[in-house]
């Protein structure tokens, strides 16, 4: 084990801080600390257990400080990987993910990861090194205007110009990231600020007079919502990622059970309710189930909770839920009535509001509506024909069965992502780790690694596409070197399948630049030091999945699947949810 270079005249908390302390509980002394020490102590004070990152010139003082830190450091292969790992960690644990990148190219490499987290409201704190304050604005070596670059794609960002502000800003950054509607926060720290020392104790008092997220729901609004729900004949709950972020799924499930309310979730909220529940309609929207979309189109009361009426959900907005009184529960007032007029807005934390709503919800007999919904479910289940080549859907269903529907699953973006949402069989919150809002290909591999680090005892599987996997597969090296036993299943259809599907359906099968051939991914994975297998026959599926699950370390399963399978049902972009197409599955009647 290398020893810490002597020559620093400060005492730092060593093994005593090995277990993350409860935030703010310890009395924190920062007097005479350097900026790098302030950074390190504040992170420990925030209870950070792992950081994902990559070093560089302006980060040298910080890297020297975290040499032998009790905080685990995961050196990634690319800063995008660091951001997505922090994101996967955050989504799966509910804690703030932390990533670290150097100035200039390091920071610009984070951008995709920050935008991904921002669109899905994921709490991250990203620390970027910056050139020294006297050089800012000079086009210095590796200078980039990180504040300017990240402003539109983060919840907030800070440039710290004085070491005495650093502790307070870090505290504010964590606070902003995790409260209200969560999101990524960037703290850009010039190298001289990390070197400079404090004269005395810095102030830690947060100075955020403009940041007061409204958390407790307004009781008259909650009562109005309950009355509208109780009075409705054909209610449906439309649940989004906000319910997961607010840890409100217990209250949600009780409301569903007590009110006998059919419920559909967005991609980000899969698992908010157990899909095996008769009242679950699974996903709604462009690739949602017939039952979910019909229920929304025919309901008389739509209860949106922690959802934001994204265009992939609503289809043509003008005809979305045309008969419904709309109730919208959201912590972000700006989300309410942004896309769809709302009759009863309820602003606040979903857990608080649902907790208060529960006792007000009555069990009402709505047999005709429940019978109707059950009939849609029965008549139009999600299905596929397991014939010929391996179907991507059957791989996903097999993984669901083999993991008891209990694994944490990340995805890339494309057809495989939609099939994963449709066929895994979601049971609990924080199971799906997927880029919904930004739709970031390449998210799956690093997100799975971050999730596995946050949940070492859980099975974590990236169900990926060949295109998406190729973008970030280099991070499998990170998994190997850090003994992170995440699994990676590549549904290789030899196409950028989702684009091919649109070209097939809307561009007369002109497959323009979507053929995507992969090398032998099992060989690549073995070269990286992971274990691997390849399947191309139906009969090999079960054995290969068992082998993968039995393996402790990272494992890549390269599955060669039917290249021309399509995702259905599908509501073509801009069409009404009534205009679902079932494609090969048949017709709507």
């Amino acid at each position: 084990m290398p020893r810490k270079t002597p020559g620093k005249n400060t005492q730092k908390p060593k093994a005593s801080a090995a277990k993350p302390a409860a935030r703010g509980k310890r009395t924190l002394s920062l007097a005479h600390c350097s900026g790098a020490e302030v950074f390190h102590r504040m992170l420990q004070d925030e209870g950070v257990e792992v950081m994902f990152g990559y070093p560089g010139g302006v980060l040298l003082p910080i890297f020297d400080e975290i040499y032998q830190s009790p905080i685990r450091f995961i050196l990634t292969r690319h800063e995008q990987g660091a951001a997505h790992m922090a994101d996967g960690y955050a989504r799966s644990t509910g804690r703030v993910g932390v990533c670290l990148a150097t100035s200039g190219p390091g920071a610009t490499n984070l951008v995709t990861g920050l935008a991904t987290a921002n669109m899905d409201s994921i709490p991250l704190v990203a620390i970027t090194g910056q050139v020294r304050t006297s050089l800012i604005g000079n086009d210095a070596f590796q200078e980039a205007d990180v504040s300017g670059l990240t402003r539109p794609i983060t919840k907030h960002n800070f440039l710290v110009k004085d070491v005495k502000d650093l502790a307070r800003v870090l505290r504010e950054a964590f606070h902003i990231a995790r409260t209200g509607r969560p999101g990524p926060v960037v703290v850009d720290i010039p190298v001289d600020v990390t070197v400079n020392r404090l004269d005395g104790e810095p102030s830690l008092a947060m100075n955020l007079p403009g940041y007061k997220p409204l958390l407790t729901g307004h009781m008259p609004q909650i009562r109005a919502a309950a009355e509208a729900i109780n009075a409705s004949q054909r209610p449906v709950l439309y649940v989004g990622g906000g319910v997961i972020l607010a840890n409100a799924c217990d209250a949600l499930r009780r409301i569903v059970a007590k009110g006998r309310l059919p419920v559909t979730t967005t991609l980000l909220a899969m698992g908010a309710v157990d899909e095996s529940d008769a009242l679950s309609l699974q996903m709604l929207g462009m690739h949602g189930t017939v039952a979910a979309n019909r229920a929304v189109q025919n309901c008389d009361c739509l209860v949106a909770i922690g959802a934001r009426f994204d265009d992939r959900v609503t289809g043509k907005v003008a005809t979305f839920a045309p008969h419904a009184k709309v109730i919208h529960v959201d912590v972000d007032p700006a989300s309410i009535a942004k896309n769809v007029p709302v009759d009863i807005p309820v602003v606040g934390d979903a857990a608080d509001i649902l907790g208060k709503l529960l006792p007000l919800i009555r069990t009402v007999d709505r047999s005709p509506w429940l019978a109707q919904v059950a009939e849609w479910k029965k008549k139009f289940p999600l299905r596929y024909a397991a014939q010929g080549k391996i179907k991507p859907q059957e791989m996903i269903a097999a993984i669901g069965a083999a993991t008891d529907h209990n694994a944490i699953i990340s995805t890339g973006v494309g057809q495989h992502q939609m099939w994963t949402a449709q066929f895994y069989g979601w049971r609990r919150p924080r199971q799906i780790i997927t880029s919904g809002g930004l739709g970031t290909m390449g998210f799956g591999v690093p997100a799975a690694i971050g999730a596995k680090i946050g949940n070492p005892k859980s099975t974590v599987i990236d169900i990926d596409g060949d295109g998406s996997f190729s973008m970030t597969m280099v991070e499998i090296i990170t998994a190997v070197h850090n003994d992170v036993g995440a699994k990676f299943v590549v549904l290789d259809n030899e196409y950028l399948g989702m684009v091919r599907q649109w070209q097939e359906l809307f561009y007369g099968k002109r497959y323009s630049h979507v053929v995507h051939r992969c090398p032998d991914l099992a060989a690549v994975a073995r070269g990286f030091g992971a274990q691997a297998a390849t399947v191309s026959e139906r009969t090999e599926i079960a054995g290969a999945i068992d082998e993968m699950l039995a393996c402790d370390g990272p494992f890549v399963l390269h599955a060669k699947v039917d290249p021309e399978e399509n995702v259905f049902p599908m509501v073509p972009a801009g069409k009404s949810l009534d205009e679902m197409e079932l494609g090969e599955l048949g017709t709507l009647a």
Partner: protein
Amino acid sequence: MRHVISALVQNQPGVLAQVAGMFAARGFNIDSLVVGRTENPDLSRMTIVAVGDDRVLEQVRKQLAKVIPVVKVRDFSGLSYVERDLMLVKIGAPAEKRPELAQLVELFRGSVVDVARATMTVQLSGTEDKLEAFIDLVRPYGIVELARTGTIAMQRGQQKHTREKNDSDE
């Protein structure tokens, strides 16, 4: 409908860029945006004039409030308030035209702040309408140059978020 919105913001670098960037990114059109100090050295006031339907303006207000250094947002529509825009306008004014121009300036309670051989510079403050009316009247003389500050506004009465006296000019 025209809305005058006032936002108190924390006085820190980047706030203007953040607010302006938010307007641009969300495709909100604004007529003017003015930033200036307030009675509190930690806060600045932004006054934004925007035209749009009520739903768009509601989004503008909410998105503005969401910006973290924005402490308070107020839409003056429907409230009783005073607004002022300040203008400097350099008008073509040969000697023979000066008396009638001076009369016009007097009528609008403006003041002549500079006179040269061929031009006269007038300072005028008031509502946007008043300034537009003046511009209209002097246009035939030839407007050489014109600069306006954009609108600032304040609610009438004993609002405690300002120490300044109520302007009873109009």
